[in-house]
């Protein structure tokens, strides 16, 4: 995410509101440029690297806090031999994540040995807005660890939908780590730290990197990120600051149909959705728009004025404005709460295929308290949509994100492994 054009001023990707107000006052011509506002505009890079998301909480971080510019998703097979090993894995993983998210100085050791830290972030690890979110797959509930009876009700191994072309080397896993931070290097640093610390307990199954445009993230609320099809993506996403809504849609609640240990957790869906961009770029604009259901320029639903205008499908029962099989109409028919999800997607790009066509698309991520009513219901509606000619889901999986760690003595997965409930 470097900005070669302005290396000196690559400084304010994330101004605080206060900085912004002060800065605007200065820009608005209030008196002369004070030293304070000068600092605001030409501040030092540490300001973003020191950004920090708290680790402890009822829920894990990396779900409802704002999406930073860089993501890395890695799935692992757990090679732990027994439940004691598994506990060691989750306890140590908790310690590592806590350290990585807070930052600090890695242990110094005799230079005759390999260093304890990769050094990718320098001698001192900075938090850089890092979150590491831990989920587990249905395969963890086989007979290896005696957890069969504790499997979340809807957790299954992801099955293939009609348009899927799933690559087994890019699917599923016992453990899923979602790294999000301001920069790719911070995620890579964290991933390498994890891999280095658990050689005997986990083995990498697949990984995908994702990114979002920092310039748009800065303007969220006023602007929406575009996907690699060139369309605004996420306009109708849920408001993650609405805690009542999150309780309803995202977080597993106590005393429901789920095992007690899952309270405060959530189902995570990851889908690697390749976009056939060459073909898409050779498709007439009007067809692109009818396939999506939005204008490409403004993001407004077809027949409407503004991006955030809410389509009234009752007034368009025959799909005159927004075709019945347009992506936005199938994805969110605006009928009831059934099938709502919190999305946290990223773009990805990873080389090219045998035909020399670009391999890029959407690293789709979503969270929901009920997998069946959430993603699966939505995807079933989308099956057969016209967009399918231009997209090819090739990987991903279903996972259950563990409840958060509330205090120092706890660890990720404690309620599952010790049956302590919540």
């Amino acid at each position, binding site marked *: 995410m470097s900005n070669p054009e302005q290396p000196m001023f690559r400084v304010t990707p994330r101004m605080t509101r206060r900085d912004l107000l002060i800065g605007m006052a200065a820009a608005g011509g209030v008196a002369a440029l004070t030293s304070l506002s000068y600092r605001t505009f030409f501040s030092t890079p540490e300001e973003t690297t020191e950004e920090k998301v708290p680790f402890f909480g009822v829920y894990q971080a990396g779900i409802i806090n704002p999406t930073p510019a860089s993501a890395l998703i890695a799935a692992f097979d757990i090679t732990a031999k027994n439940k004691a090993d598994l506990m060691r894995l989750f306890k140590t993983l908790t310690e590592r994540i806590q350290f990585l998210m807070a930052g600090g100085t890695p242990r110094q050791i005799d230079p005759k040995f390999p260093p304890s830290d990769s050094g990718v972030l320098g001698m001192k690890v900075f938090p850089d807005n890092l979150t590491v979110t831990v989920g587990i797959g249905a395969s963890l509930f086989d007979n290896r660890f005696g957890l069969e009876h504790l499997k979340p009700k809807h957790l299954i191994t992801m099955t*293939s939908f009609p348009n899927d072309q799933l690559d087994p080397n890019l699917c599923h896993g016992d453990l899923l780590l979602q790294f999000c931070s301001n920069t790719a290097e911070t995620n890579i640093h964290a991933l390498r730290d994890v891999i280095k610390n658990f050689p005997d307990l986990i083995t990498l199954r697949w990984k995908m990197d994702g990114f979002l445009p920092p310039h748009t993230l800065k303007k969220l609320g006023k602007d929406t990120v575009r996907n690699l099809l060139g369309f605004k993506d996420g306009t109708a996403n849920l408001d993650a600051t609405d805690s009542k809504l999150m309780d309803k849609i995202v977080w597993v609640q106590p005393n429901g149909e789920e095992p007690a240990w899952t309270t405060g957790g959530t189902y995570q869906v990851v889908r690697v959705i390749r976009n056939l961009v060459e073909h898409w770029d*050779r498709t007439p604009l009007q067809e692109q728009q009818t396939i999506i259901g939005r204008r490409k320029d403004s993001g407004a639903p077809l027949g409407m004025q503004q991006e955030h205008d809410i389509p009234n499908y009752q007034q368009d029962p025959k799909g005159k404005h927004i*075709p019945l099989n347009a992506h936005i109409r199938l994805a969110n028919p605006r009928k009831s709460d059934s099938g709502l999800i919190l999305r946290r997607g990223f773009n990805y790009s990873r080389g090219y295929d045998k*035909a020399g066509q670009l391999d890029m698309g959407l690293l789709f991520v979503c969270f929901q308290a009920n997998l069946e009513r959430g993603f699966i219901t939505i995807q079933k509606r989308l099956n057969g949509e016209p967009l*399918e000619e231009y997209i090819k889901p090739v990987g991903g999986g279903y996972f259950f994100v563990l409840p958060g760690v509330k205090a120092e003595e706890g660890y990720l997965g404690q309620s599952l492994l010790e049956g302590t409930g919540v």
Partner: protein
Amino acid sequence: MQAWISNFRRVHFYATLCLISLTVGACNSNNSPESVNVSPEAKEVKAEQQDSAKKIAITVTDKGCEAGQITADAGKTIFVISNKSSNPLEFEILSGVKVIGERENIAPGFVQQMKSNLTEGEYDLVCGKLSTPKSKLIVKAASGTDQAKAPDSSQLAAPIAEYKVYVIQETDQLVKNTKTFTDAVIAGDLSKAQKLYAPARVHWERTEPVAELFSDLDNRMDARADDFEKKEADPKFTGFHRLEKALFQDKTTKGTKPIAEKLMKDSLELQKRVASLTIEPKNMVGGAADLIEEVAKTKISGEEDRYSHTDLWDFNSNVEGSQKIVELLRPLIQKANPDLLKRIDDNFATVNQGLTKYKTTDGGFVAYEKVSETDKKGLKTSVTTLAEDLSQLRGTLGVD
């Protein structure tokens, strides 16, 4: 596979029908007259520039159209029809006996608009009843360079009809070749079946975008192992490529009888469905590009016929199918954008030249693995260029 197309096209069928009849406006309900005020002075026919479409006011009295003859420029035109007669009226533009555009049931005292994309020529106007004396509409060639040169959609009717014939013939041939192929498979004649595999696919590949309109058949007949969860071991993996795997990788016909029988049955079903299929302008015009997109996606990579390596057969058939469409549309493309046509022709020639090198004496092609990396790159370049140019076709011919 492209399961979406059938649903998608079906939903759009109504809209496209309207397009064929040329007047998008005529798709709106005829029973909702728009209360556009036309000044009483508009007795003379006036043309005015507005929103790039020119408006032509037409006043109809009991004697018919007030103006006996109307002259207009080619391009997008809006007719503003005021019914000053005492009866509901019908407004039609006729080219010979063919209706180019119409507005029905304009109630007395009401004004309605009708959009039309006029091309050069002489037309008759019906204003009132069919028995009312007709007026003349003379459309002159557009003067400005920014005028739409797209042909009106009715001109696509003839090429589409011809294309339908082509598709039917190809499907008939597909049925015939699939019969001899599957017979050989069922008879357990491995080497004969191997020889007949690629020729049977020729006719599928030539009209692939049409065959893909039937997603169920497409899935059963032409899916590749990647499309299934358990890949080659998946019981849903059937059709040509399943037989290809048996014949060329497992080198046996053992256990393939049900698959061969099903493939034969499905190709007969395809034949039946194609006979009653309505090919829309977009299917045909877009098909030329879709065929080349197929080449760019799966033939260039050698993924299509990974066991038999007969990819060049399919490659060539896609190109032939695409070229056929361009042939049928040639006069229209020539008129709309001769430079584009020239480029397309040149690119087809380049692609065909690349293919010729790998032709065998018996009319087939060498195994794809024998194609040099340099030539693969060359083929890829020319196919991509062709895909880019063919992607202009729909816009050039004004097909939605």
